[in-house]
């Protein structure tokens, strides 16, 4: 059967199980949008900006574990995807980004809306394809989905020249993909796993350090088994939150710059760190010279280039976290480390995340506690900044894929569109979007599709009228010179939400927080935006200042 390149693309996407494709239409992608028109199996979700479309595809992928798909036109459409692609790349999110390209004969001629998207995105994607002939479409789509969703996952770009979308060719779909140059190692080396088990047995002060890789590998169950079996205290990174229930006594909460004192002291005192799908990121380790100085390190990671990149490792294990943990769990037993466990409990009791009420202000941490009380089962999509850290600290995540945020790239504007993707992917879940006043306005236009689709998103803005995290750094390290962080000139977000057509509420007093959250719970025919006007100059603590060791954590300002 002869099909156009665009129709072939759409048929292949369906065979890959794609339910939604997020996009913004434009000249060089029109044949693809046309092929999608009225399709009942593959729903096109028109977004208002390509960046929003890319984050929506990303949020869908994070919430479901399936590949997110975004579609944009050439030139500016494609360059607007760049932030979203880089965001997905940094957090290893499986995504396929499809861009229209100008006609083959115009490529390289500075044609209208032409941009070398393959060149622009080369360092921020796992792989990319330029399709110049419709015959290539089926194979490329199959390869792209295979590459995006296996090994260390990540975004793959398919750039299709407009004539390749239009021309017809014989439709042939390859059920299997076999690339001689791409064979990710998923099973860990058994000798290495045995070595790891031996180190775990010997250790007196071991800790488990799990990251986003556990979530990506769907290895949360295996991680729990390892923890329950060994009874070794565990810290889960910002990207991994939910992989292990934070409500469990062995959970030390997240480590790092704004992590718990307990987790940070545990790194400093540990004689063994077992890293699982975590990458010793600078926001976790602080000063590398002072990081876990007495500890041997076991590092389990799907990506060999990640092992030994920041920290020398004693036992490297390349493999999928699920497979490796399954094998490791067979070899381990309850660790005989009572004094260490007691020490951890003591730190945990002594240094919980804490805050103090200031005047009659709405305290952001109080809002987080209230959100947790009323939405503990929700999928929480946070943006980037202070509110993100408070959410990570005060919400006790218990399930993987319950917490979505841009941890690696730290992309402001990520959360609202990502929440749209998450809600579409998980229609039976409540999706809470915790946003900041700075980040919300970066992609506020995506409120439109959320309203059109009647998505019952709970959008909670922690509004301190500042670019809060930067202001905090200015207060602490730049002599309170508040350069370009004053957001008092932002519009009234409740009124603005109403103007868009959503429910908009404004909360200025502590006693109004809970009633507003309860009211939001009852609204299920569209998004509700609550603008929480919080204490303006509240800081996130604890804090390990950049370049300091984890032991130098500041618990607050005296």
């Amino acid at each position: 059967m002869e099909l156009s390149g665009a129709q072939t693309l759409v048929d292949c996407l369906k065979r890959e199980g794609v339910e939604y494709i997020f996009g913004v239409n434009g000249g060089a992608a029109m044949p693809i949008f046309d092929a999608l028109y009225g399709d009942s199996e593959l729903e096109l979700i028109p977004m208002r900006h390509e960046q929003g479309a890319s984050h929506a595809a990303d949020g869908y992928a994070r919430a479901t574990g399936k590949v997110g798909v975004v579609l944009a036109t050439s030139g500016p459409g494609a360059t607007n995807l760049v932030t979203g692609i880089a965001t997905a790349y940094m957090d290893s999110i499986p995504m396929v980004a499809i861009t229209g390209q100008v006609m083959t004969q115009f490529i390289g001629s500075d044609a209208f809306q032409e941009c070398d998207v393959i060149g622009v995105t080369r360092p921020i994607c796992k792989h990319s394809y330029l399709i110049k002939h419709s015959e290539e479409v089926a194979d490329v789509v199959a390869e792209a989905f295979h590459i995006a969703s296996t090994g260390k996952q990540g975004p793959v770009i398919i750039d299709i020249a407009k004539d390749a979308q239009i021309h017809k060719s014989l439709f042939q779909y390859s059920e299997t993909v076999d690339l001689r140059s791409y064979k990710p190692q998923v099973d860990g080396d058994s000798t290495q796993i045995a070595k790891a088990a031996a180190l775990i047995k010997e250790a007196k002060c071991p800790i488990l350090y799990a990251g986003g890789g556990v979530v990506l590998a769907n290895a949360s169950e295996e991680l729990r088994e390892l923890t329950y079996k060994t009874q070794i205290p565990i810290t889960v990174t910002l990207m991994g939150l939910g992989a292990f229930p934070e409500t469990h006594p062995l959970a030390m909460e997240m480590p790092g710059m704004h992590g718990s004192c307990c987790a940070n002291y545990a790194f400093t005192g540990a004689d063994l760190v077992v890293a699982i799908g975590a990458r010793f990121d600078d926001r976790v380790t602080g000063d590398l010279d002072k990081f876990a100085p007495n500890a041997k390190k076991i590092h389990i990671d799907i990506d060999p280039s990640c092992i030994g990149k920041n920290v020398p490792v004693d036992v490297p294990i390349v493999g999928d976290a699920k497979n490796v943990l399954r094998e490791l769990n067979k070899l381990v037993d309850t660790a005989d480390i009572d004094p260490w466990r007691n020490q951890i409990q003591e730190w945990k009791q002594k240094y919980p995340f804490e805050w103090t009420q200031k005047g009659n202000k709405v305290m952001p941490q109080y809002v987080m506690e209230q959100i947790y009380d009323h939405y503990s089962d929700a999928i929480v999509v946070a943006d980037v900044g202070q509110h993100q850290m408070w959410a990570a600290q005060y919400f006790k995540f218990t399930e993987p894929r319950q917490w979505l945020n841009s941890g690696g790239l730290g992309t402001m504007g990520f959360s609202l569109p990502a929440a749209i993707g998450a809600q579409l992917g998980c229609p039976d879940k409540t999706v809470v979007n915790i946003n900041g006043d700075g980040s919300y306005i970066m992609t506020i236009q995506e409120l439109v599709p959320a309203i059109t689709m009647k998505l019952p998103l709970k959008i909670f803005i922690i509004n301190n009228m500042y670019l809060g995290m930067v202001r905090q750094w200015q207060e602490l390290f730049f002599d309170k010179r508040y350069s370009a962080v004053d957001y008092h000139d932002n519009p009234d977000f409740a009124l603005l939400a109403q103007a868009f057509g959503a429910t908009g509420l404004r909360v200025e007093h502590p006693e109004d927080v809970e009633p507003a959250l309860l009211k939001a719970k009852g609204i299920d025919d569209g998004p509700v935006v609550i603008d929480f006007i919080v204490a303006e100059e509240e800081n996130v603590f604890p804090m390990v200042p950049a370049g300091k060791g984890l032991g130098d954590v500041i618990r607050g300002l005296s």
Partner: protein
Amino acid sequence: MDKEERHIFSVMVENRFGVLARVAGLFSGRGFNIDSLNVAETHDKSVSQITLVTHGDAQIIDQIYQHLNRLIDVIEVTDISTGTHVERELLLLKICTDDAQKRAEILQVAEVFRGRVIDTKPASLVVEITGDQGKLEAAIEIFNTYGILELARTGKIAMPRGNAK
């Protein structure tokens, strides 16, 4: 920091457009330098071989190796310099021969370097020399005293000795 060492990587890649840019981009994006680079098709037309010379401490070299391997179009990476191997470069020199006396001398020097004259004109000739880096640099130094008009050099290609790969 560890000692910096020179390494020769043989990188077998899919013979497609854009692959070299991916390999080169990996270096430029991390601030690693490529000392020399050679790309050519192999006996299997679907495979190209990139021979790449770089330098760095053990950690950097390991990162380069791992990241090359991570590229989807890379089939195989071998660090040739870790074992015994042979390496060669090809050098073409166009040398000024406007005086006859000098011309004879130049031919003699070329002989010393086992060079071959592959083109000759009244006022210049082109010499082809192969060898390792040291030999080629010595040749360039000597010929420069006669006046090098043009120079072209391939960059290194290398191969492990014997059966071992």
